[in-house]
Each structure stands twice: as structure tokens, then as C-alpha cells.
């Protein structure tokens, strides 16, 4: 015991976080003050919002629970939506199949085997009408996980809501619609980088002017991190992307306060517990400062880093999959301690299959246990004032800023993506990380330590429904033969002209979907005008 007393606590071992920060064994008040003397002035709901964007946070209203769901036909998806809502979910997060995400119709030869596989298949407005049948869009906010084909899918959502009598000026909801990150990871790009950004900006401009409560873009650090980026890069690249969309939107004549409050974020959670929490707190402070100091945002809401967080697919393992239930519970805790607005968890079986109903239910219950049993909603920012968390928070604010300067040095994020600079940096990092997992430097329970000698798979597969795919194809063919072709041709032609004339394409896209033009038909017109993205190869 005497020996312990004499040990200098700063000198034991060396701990380096994934972001490259060294961790001391003990933190004290002076560590916090050196980095951020204003610490005692920080209040939740007050600029720069380090402690949360609202003064009362979950005390007033817990985070929204919005599990990612969607598979097979719109009919099947509608059933799963209703199951989730019945079980206490208050938001929907729609998964689309790959043909829809890549802008292909179900009957396209390139869609073979993919129709309805990883999400719901959508060909025309009819599918949206079926998928949301009986769901009250005033009570349930809907998030659309769509990027490359976002213009079309958003047009369908708006057209469907309008047809059902909702007032678009009050309609809420979110689209992922962050194409720049698709070039870094996830890969559902369609058009070249510049044209892709133009389409995103069209949606931001259109929503700001017509559907002001709708969040047209959710900028995704998530997939950037899933592709191998460290937590600092995740935040830095996401902020650079949000700035790029903002700069382009301002060029359309909108003021920052006319649209910035509707931008939101989607971030990743896995890895070191404290590092992730500090990442969000430091990021939130930095984003507020960027908006106010660089963009002159006067409205506090424009300075809010609103987010969905909880998922962390890259942290989950195929080995001993039940362990993922425990991991996702920790991720949920991180998310809540970080002041998230919306939470979605990966299900424990996601490494194998799209979630079974059972797995979806466990994820839902995980969040409900956290909300209702753990006292997580009782007080705001419970970790605020922790010497460690606050020191790391400061560190993140500074390091994210430095990483963003690096991107400026590469000619800005759009250029860095178009030339593959970012992709190259991230694939290098992915390789280093994978090597570290394989040689045991990064520990993964069940993968490189505490392994089972013989593993029997216990996960049940969600079956691929070939009949549903065939039905979807038949439904599309039947609709195409029944619909009035003249308005389809006319609206597609208007879309082509608007694209050539560099107009905002949202109005033409809404007209086309109302005429029941299909996703593939609309995207083909735009491919004619814009061409397709040619992927630079890096590994």
C-alpha cells in the first residue's frame, strides 16, 4: 500500500486514444481551465451549446427513437412500420433497397437479386402511398435514408403528403440527402460530384422557401467513420461538407438563418466511451462557433448541431453476436450522455442479415430501458464538469478545427473528394485499423481475445423474399401500362429542360412523380444531362 502512495499517477503506462490524444491517469480542474477558461459560463441551451442545444433537454422531452427499417415491398414495410409504432417508436427511419438508392427501377437488369433486399423497393409514387398508408405524418416524423436518388424520393414524399391533405408549410421530417459522404463511403452516388452537390442545394433551397420545417439534409459523419476515419476526421469532414452545402446555398441568395437551422447531422458511435462523448460536446461547441463567427448566424437555432446518433455498425462483431446487444446498450448510453436529439441503434444481428423483428424489438427496448429505468433524462448534461470529459471536449474542439484546415489546404472538401484525396486518406486509415485488430493491438472481445474455439451461429436470418421482388416488378409493369403516358412524357421533358437550364429541379421532379414517372425514368433523364460519376480508385 505504501508503494502505491508513492507512485506518480501521471507516469503509469501510456494510453493513446484513436484520435491520437494521450490520456493522463488523472485529470484535475487546471487541465480544464488551461484549455477553456470560460468553462463555468457554459449553460445548456446557451451558445455555444457544448452542454446541449436545449435548456432542459430530456427533462422536457426525451430523445426521439427512430430505428432504421424497411424491407421487401412497400406493403411489407408498412406492416413493420406499424409494428414499430405500436411498440412505442415515435419516428420512422426508412431503408430503401439498392436499386432505389442507385436510381434504378425494379425491372432493370442491374437490379437483379437486389429488389427489396436491403430495404424497401420504390418505383413510383404508388409505393409511397402504400408504405405510409394509415400512418399519421403529423404524429410520426419520417426520415428518408436516401442520397443519390434523394431528389426523386423527397419529391415522392412531398407529393404523397400533399395528396393526403397535409399542409407542406408545416410538414416535418428529414432526408439523409448527403451525397458528398457517399463518395467517401456507402457508395450510392450516381452523378458527377458537382452536379450531385447542385441537386442537394436544390432541395435545401426548395425546402427553405416552401417546406420550411423539413430538414432536407442530414450530414453524415457516420459513414465516413464506418469507412475508417478516426473520430476527429469524422467530425471535421462532416463539418466541411455541411459548410460546402451552406456556401452553395448562400450563392442562391438565401441568408444563413433561412436554412441553417434545418441542417442536421448523423454521427457514429463505437470505440472509446469517453472519447465519443467528448467528440460530440466539442463538435457541438465548434459548430456553433463556425456558424456564428464564420457565417454570421444570428439565430441560435442556426448554430445548433442537431444529431441522430447511436448506431455503430463497425463496432459490432459477427463473432458471439449476442455481445452486440451489450455493445449497442453502451452506444445508446454514450448517445444519451452526449445530448443527442434522435437515437437509432444497430441491431445485434446486423452483421449477418437485415434485422429480424425480434432483433428490432431488442434494440427498441434497449433505448426504452435507458429512458425509463436509468434516470438518464433527469438532469441535463450529467457529465458536464467532469475534468476528463471537459479536457477531452476542449481537445476535440481544437483538433477538429485543425483537421478542417487540412481540408482547406487540399482545396476544400468538394475538390478533395473529387480528386479522391479524402478517400485515399481514409482507406489508409482503414488498413491501419484492420491490421491493428488482426494483430490484437485494438482489442475486440470475441474476435481477437476471449474467443470461442467453436462457434455455432445463433442468429436467425431474415429471408429474402423473391416473391415480393416479382410482385414489385409486376406492379411496376402494370402501373406503367395503365398510367396516362402524356403527362409522364411532358413532365420528364420539363425536367430535362430545367436541368439543362440549371434551374432548381425540385418543382419539375414533384410534377414528374405526380404523373407516376418512375425513379429510373427520372434518374435516366438526369444522367443524360449530367453524365455519371467516374470513381477514382484508391486502396
Amino acid at each position, binding site marked *: 500500500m505504501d508503494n502505491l502512495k508513492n507512485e506518480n499517477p501521471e507516469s503509469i503506462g501510456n494510453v493513446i486514444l484513436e484520435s491520437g490524444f494521450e490520456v493522463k491517469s488523472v485529470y484535475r480542474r487546471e487541465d480544464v481551465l488551461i484549455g477553456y477558461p470560460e468553462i463555468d459560463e457554459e449553460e445548456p441551451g446557451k451558445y455555444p451549446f457544448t452542454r446541449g442545444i436545449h435548456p432542459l433537454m430530456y427533462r422536457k422531452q426525451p430523445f426521439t427513437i427512430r430505428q432504421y427499417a424497411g424491407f421487401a415491398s412497400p406493403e411489407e414495410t408498412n406492416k413493420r412500420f406499424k409494428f414499430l409504432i405500436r411498440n412505442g417508436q415515435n419516428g420512422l427511419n426508412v431503408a430503401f433497397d*439498392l436499386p432505389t438508392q442507385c436510381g434504378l427501377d425494379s425491372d432493370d437488369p442491374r437490379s437483379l437479386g437486389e429488389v427489396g433486399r436491403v430495404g424497401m423497393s420504390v418505383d413510383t409514387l404508388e409505393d409511397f402511398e402504400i408504405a405510409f398508408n394509415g400512418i399519421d405524418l403529423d404524429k410520426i416524423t419520417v426520415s428518408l435514408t436516401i442520397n443519390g436518388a434523394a431528389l426523386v424520393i423527397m419529391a415522392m414524399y412531398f407529393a404523397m403528403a400533399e395528396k393526403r391533405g397535409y399542409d407542406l408549410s408545416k410538414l416535418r421530417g428529414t432526408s439523409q440527402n448527403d451525397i458528398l459522404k457517399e463518395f467517401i463511403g456507402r*457508395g450510392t452516388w450516381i452523378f458527377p460530384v458537382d452536379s450531385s452537390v447542385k441537386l442537394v442545394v436544390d432541395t435545401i433551397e426548395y425546402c427553405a422557401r416552401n417546406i420550411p420545417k423539413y430538414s432536407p439534409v442530414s450530414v453524415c459523419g457516420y459513414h465516413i467513420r*464506418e469507412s475508417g476515419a478516426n473520430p476527429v476526421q469524422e467530425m471535421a469532414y462532416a463539418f466541411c461538407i455541411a459548410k460546402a452545402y451552406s456556401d452553395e446555398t448562400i450563392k442562391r441568395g438565401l441568408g444563413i438563418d433561412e436554412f441553417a437551422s434545418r441542417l442536421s447531422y448523423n454521427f457514429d458511435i463505437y470505440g472509446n466511451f469517453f472519447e465519443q462523448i467528448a467528440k460530440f460536446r466539442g463538435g457541438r461547441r465548434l459548430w456553433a462557433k463556425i456558424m456564428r463567427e464564420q457565417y454570421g448566424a444570428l439565430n441560435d437555432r442556426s448554430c445548433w448541431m442537431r444529431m441522430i446518433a447511436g448506431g455503430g455498425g463497425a463496432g459490432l462483431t*459477427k463473432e458471439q453476436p449476442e455481445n452486440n446487444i451489450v455493445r449497442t446498450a453502451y452506444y445508446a448510453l454514450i448517445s444519451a450522455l452526449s445530448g443527442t436529439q434522435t437515437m437509432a441503434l444497430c441491431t445485434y444481428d446486423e452483421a449477418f442479415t437485415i434485422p429480424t423483428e425480434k432483433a428490432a424489438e431488442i434494440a427498441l427496448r434497449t433505448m426504452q430501458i435507458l429512458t425509463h429505468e436509468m434516470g438518464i433524462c433527469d438532469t441535463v448534461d450529467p457529465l458536464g464538469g467532469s475534468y476528463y470529459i471537459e479536457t477531452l471536449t476542449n481537445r476535440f474542439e481544437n483538433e477538429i478545427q485543425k483537421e478542417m484546415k487540412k481540408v482547406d489546404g487540399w482545396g476544400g472538401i468538394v475538390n478533395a473528394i473529387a480528386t479522391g484525396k479524402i478517400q485515399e486518406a481514409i*482507406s*489508409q486509415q482503414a*488498413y491501419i485499423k484492420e491490421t491493428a485488430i488482426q494483430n490484437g493491438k485494438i482489442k475486440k472481445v470475441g474476435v481477437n481475445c476471449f474467443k470461442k474455439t467453436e462457434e455455432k451461429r445463433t442468429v436467425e436470418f431474415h429471408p429474402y423474399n423473391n416473391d415480393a421482388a416479382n410482385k414489385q416488378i409486376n406492379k411496376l409493369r402494370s402501373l406503367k401500362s395503365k398510367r396516362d403516358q402524356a403527362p409522364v412524357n411532358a413532365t420528364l421533358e420539363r425536367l430535362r429542360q430545367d436541368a439543362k437550364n440549371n434551374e432548381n429541379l425540385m418543382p419539375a421532379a414533384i410534377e414528374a412523380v405526380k404523373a407516376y414517372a418512375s425513379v429510373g425514368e427520372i434518374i435516366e433523364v438526369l444522367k443524360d444531362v449530367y453524365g455519371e460519376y467516374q470513381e477514382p480508385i484508391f486502396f
Partner: protein
Amino acid sequence: MLKNSDYNLYFEILFYLMKVLLAKPGLDGHDVGVKVLAHALKNSGVDVVYTGLRKSIENIVQQAVDENADLIGLSILSGTHRILCERISHVMTERNLNIQWIVGGNIPTEDVESLEKLGALKAFPTGTNIETVIRFIQSL
């Protein structure tokens, strides 16, 4: 005495690099794994070409022919492995080609055998050690 041309031949045999075409067929956008493998193979002295995302099986086979690849590696994580492997098997027969191919990705263990029956030299489910794949390729 060896002639110059003999030396060339000798060096070609001694330093012959195996050429592998890594490919992403179908619409699946998960490319972290395939890029990590490409990087690791390159480091271990294999000549690697990576196709990028969303290539048709026909395109992949054609590229393998054009590049004179010794082996094709398909990476599939969306669950379409059966359909795409049937397709490559069909295209190889149709074109009367004999390029060896392997497949990796989100493949349930019970599907491994059927993919190998379709003609995959080997099917590697996710979670396979990179070293295992590299050793397998080097053993060819």
C-alpha cells in the same frame, strides 16, 4: 553463356507477380473490406487491380481478360452472392474461359459449400483473417 533474352525470361519467371482483379459486382457499396484486402495483397507482393463499385459480372470478366488477371476476387456484402456467383459461373462457361475466382463477404457458412460448387475456388465469409486470404492466394 546466357543470352540477353534468356536473362529476361529468367527474371520474368523469378519475379513473376501474380495478378488479382478485385471486384465489386452488383449494387453493394460496402468497399472497406475489399480495399483493405487490396492494400494487404499489394504489400505482400501481389499485383492488384481493383474495379471500383457497381460493376456487372460481364464487365468484371472482360476486365480480367483485358488485364490478363490470374484470379478474380468478388466482394459481395448485400446478400446477393448466390445470384452473382451463378452469373459469373455462367459467363465463364459461355465464354469458354478458365479464370479462377474466389468470393468474399457477408456469406453465411451454410452457403460456402454451394458457392464452391458453383465454381468458386474458395468462399471467405466476413470475419476471415486477411492473412488467411493472402496465404491462400499465394499458394495458388
